[in-house]
């Protein structure tokens, strides 16, 4: 475990973009630990940002606390919570795949100068179609708009994709884009590139069998697709949503290389 985040890879993207499929594959690699979502990178990075922005002057003046000490304290908290597996050989890379990590790629990159980031992208129509099959509700018990209405689902994808694109630009070669479509059409080639980005070689164990018990919580929504071989059948599942595309959604799809 390194304080600078070497060995850490954070995945992020719009929910229902294939992050769990990616985990299903990466978890087979002997050098990788890729567990289920923890939500912790975003929580801790945002808490650090909040401390740094609102309390930095106070901490410097009255607690002789330098910015890097605050950053290291919070970085050490995150690696201390999720990094145990890296203490045991042969694991050298920890992949954390909470989709909404995408919201905190910037602060995470500051906290962990050696960490790497993967923006997982999927056709927004297919993402929206998948979202609309969920029954996710908020604390008030009501279904979220982005799992209830096609326009809201597409807008949700558009907005989060914009954040992901912003992170790609800000992080440069520390951030790799992986598309769902490449992953299911050419899994070996796509995984080889991703593993190289993480400093690892391809290992055919990524295509090994997985068990139901490997997946928890919302991941289990996709069990039938996770337990079998990688298939392309979900590409184009959101074609019927074409009629809901706004100019903004079209522009984002085009920007990401999808045909509209």
């Amino acid at each position, binding site marked *: 475990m390194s304080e600078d985040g070497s060995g850490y890879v954070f995945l992020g993207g719009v929910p229902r973009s294939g992050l769990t499929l990616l985990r299903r594959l990466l978890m087979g690699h002997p050098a990788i630990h890729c*567990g289920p979502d923890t939500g912790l990178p975003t929580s801790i990075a945002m*808490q650090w940002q909040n*401390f740094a922005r609102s*309390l930095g002057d106070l901490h410097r003046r009255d*607690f*002789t606390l330098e910015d890097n000490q605050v950053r290291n304290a919070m970085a050490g908290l995150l690696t*201390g*919570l999720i990094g145990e597996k890296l203490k*045991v050989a042969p694991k050298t890379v920890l992949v954390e795949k909470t989709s909404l990590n995408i919201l905190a790629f910037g602060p995470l990159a500051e906290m962990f100068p050696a960490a790497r980031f993967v923006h997982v992208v999927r056709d927004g129509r297919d993402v929206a179609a998948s979202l609309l099959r969920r029954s996710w509700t908020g604390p008030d018990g009501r279904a979220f708009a982005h799992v209830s209405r096609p326009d809201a689902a597409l807008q949700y994808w558009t907005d989060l994709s914009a954040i992901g694109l912003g992170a790609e630009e800000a992080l440069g070669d520390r951030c790799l884009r992986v598309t769902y479509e490449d992953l299911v059409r050419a899994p070996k080639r796509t995984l080889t590139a991703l593993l190289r980005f993480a400093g690892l070689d391809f290992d055919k164990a990524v295509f090994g069998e997985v068990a139901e018990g490997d997946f928890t919580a919302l991941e289990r929504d996709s069990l039938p697709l996770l337990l079998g071989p990688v298939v392309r059948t979900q590409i184009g599942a959101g074609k019927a949503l074409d009629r809901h595309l706004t100019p903004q959604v079209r522009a984002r799809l085009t920007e990401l290389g999808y045909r509209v």
Partner: protein
Amino acid sequence: MTRSAPIFIGGAPRSGTTLLRAIVNASGTIACGPEARIVPALAALSAQVEAMHMPVLQAQYGLAPAALHDRFATAINAFFEPMAEATGRRVAEKTPANILHFAQLRRLFPHSPLVAIVRDGRDVVASLLSMDWTDARTGAPMDIVRDAGAAARLWVASIEAGEAMRGDPNYFELRYESLVTHPRDTISGLFAFLGQDQEAIEAALDHASGFEAGAGENESSAERVSRPIDTAAIGRWESDLDQLQRNLVLSIAGPALSRLGYV
């Protein structure tokens, strides 16, 4: 760890926590700066992670429950290490809201003394209503400084959080009224609990001479704490709260005020 475990001080806002921190800091062996404001946030985050993510962290990330507590304690300690090194003293952290997290802080810091200060809830409400505190996110006045009911509810929550700790042998509770009426006896009791000697007590009784009123942010009582202790703020509610406010406070805080012997 036992020897250097930080001391946590809490209480409802406007209960005398700043006076208490000035007294503790004047001891000469404990450093108690202004509110660092990180403890309640990290204690709350640790409780949230424990409640929501522990099964996954344990089963899939190899983290033992005790290790979760240790990780958060290490992070909190990291904020205070520079101050401990610079002063050579044990660190005490005073943020009023600490009291709402005493139960979780006990899990993170099994050996830390937890100190609560209690003040008549009616005086606390009257004092809160004279503050101009705003919500950092919205810029609007906070509910607790414009609504006697919200202020009373926060006081009750703070009292109940302290009461829940009374079975803990390393928990100490003192009254604001005792502190300002009988400072020597009250400070002696507290300092005996904290392992401080007579010299520290004498230094603490002269807390005002060494208090740095300019330190910290939003320590609303800094100017007052920089003066010698007086009893002028006891019973201020009688002149500051109107009848409607008094009734509202009693309807919310009556049982707690009664348990504490204030009514």
